């Protein structure tokens, strides 16, 4: 995409230096600065700017949701009319239990679904109950649906540049 803010070489070095995680030392920004050859204050200033630009979404802990009790994770998928999908997507995305909601292309005939909403619960029944709420909201716009439960994390590395 061409509309993204431009990163300079130091921003990139900063992202590479922290993508494995923030150092667990008393002064982590100072430590990163030593690694990439800038002052700790400069690291902090640049991180603030990257946060403000949305390049860094947030700084903090990323839990393994299975380990914190969210043992059922269902990718609910829906076939809804293209003409109504933006309105419906906004409504589904507004439900408190939906963590991600996207419009994606169908891949006919194998895949008829164009609306994806991720739902987490501590049991499959809880996820199914939440999927039923989505179905009710969609009403007759729902032309087909499925819930794909995850059964194993095969890889969770986060991104690497």
């Amino acid at each position, binding site marked *: *995409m*061409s509309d993204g*803010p431009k990163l300079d070489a130091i921003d990139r070095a900063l*992202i590479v230096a*922290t*993508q*494995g*995680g*923030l150092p*667990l030392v*008393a*002064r*982590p*920004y100072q430590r990163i600065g030593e690694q990439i050859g800038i002052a*700790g204050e400069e690291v*902090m200033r640049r991180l603030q700017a990257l946060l403000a630009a949305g*390049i*860094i*979404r*947030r*700084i*903090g*802990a*990323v*839990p*393994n949701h299975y*380990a*914190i*009790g*969210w043992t059922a994770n269902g*990718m609910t998928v829906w076939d809804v009319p293209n003409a109504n999908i*933006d309105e419906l*997507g906004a409504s589904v*995305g*507004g439900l408190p239990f939906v*963590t*991600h*909601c*996207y*419009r*994606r*292309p169908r*891949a006919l005939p*194998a*895949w008829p679904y164009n609306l*994806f909403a991720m739902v*987490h619960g*501590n049991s499959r029944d809880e996820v199914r109950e939440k999927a039923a709420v989505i179905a009710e909201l969609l009403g007759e716009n729902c032309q087909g649906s*499925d819930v*794909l*439960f*995850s*059964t194993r*994390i*095969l*890889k969770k*590395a*986060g*991104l*690497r540049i």
Partner: protein
Amino acid sequence: MPELDAVDRLIIDKLQGDFPICDEPYAAAAKQFGISGDELMARLQRLLDDKVLTRFGPMVQIERMGGAFVLAALQAPEARYDEVVALVNALPQVAHNYRREHALNMWFVLATETPQGIADAIATIETDTGLQVFAFPKEREYFVEMKLETRV
């Protein structure tokens, strides 16, 4: 599953964002939990070691850097499942990969520095596995807020 005490749960629930940017951020963040910065670091290290946390640090939105992030899926024959997992996971562009119950039984996210990188990664996976990859790039994002509180 690792045992979590009340302080661990607070740390997980309260530190999913807004980690301070200041000279001694662990000490600053630890105050809300009534513990020292050293103890917070020790607990984070243990939570990472126990895989309760997958990481601790900045979360980058790769699309805002000019990169691309695409959900993709394939149908791996059961007899070859582990082999296909190894081939797919071998690509550094594969950020996450989940087994799901469906004919399309492997769902992974490709993250690359350029949009062309996605096409290259898909071509590599198709060649290496001999299987068709279905790409589901997001056409619109209606909501994303992956913050889940502890339930254990």
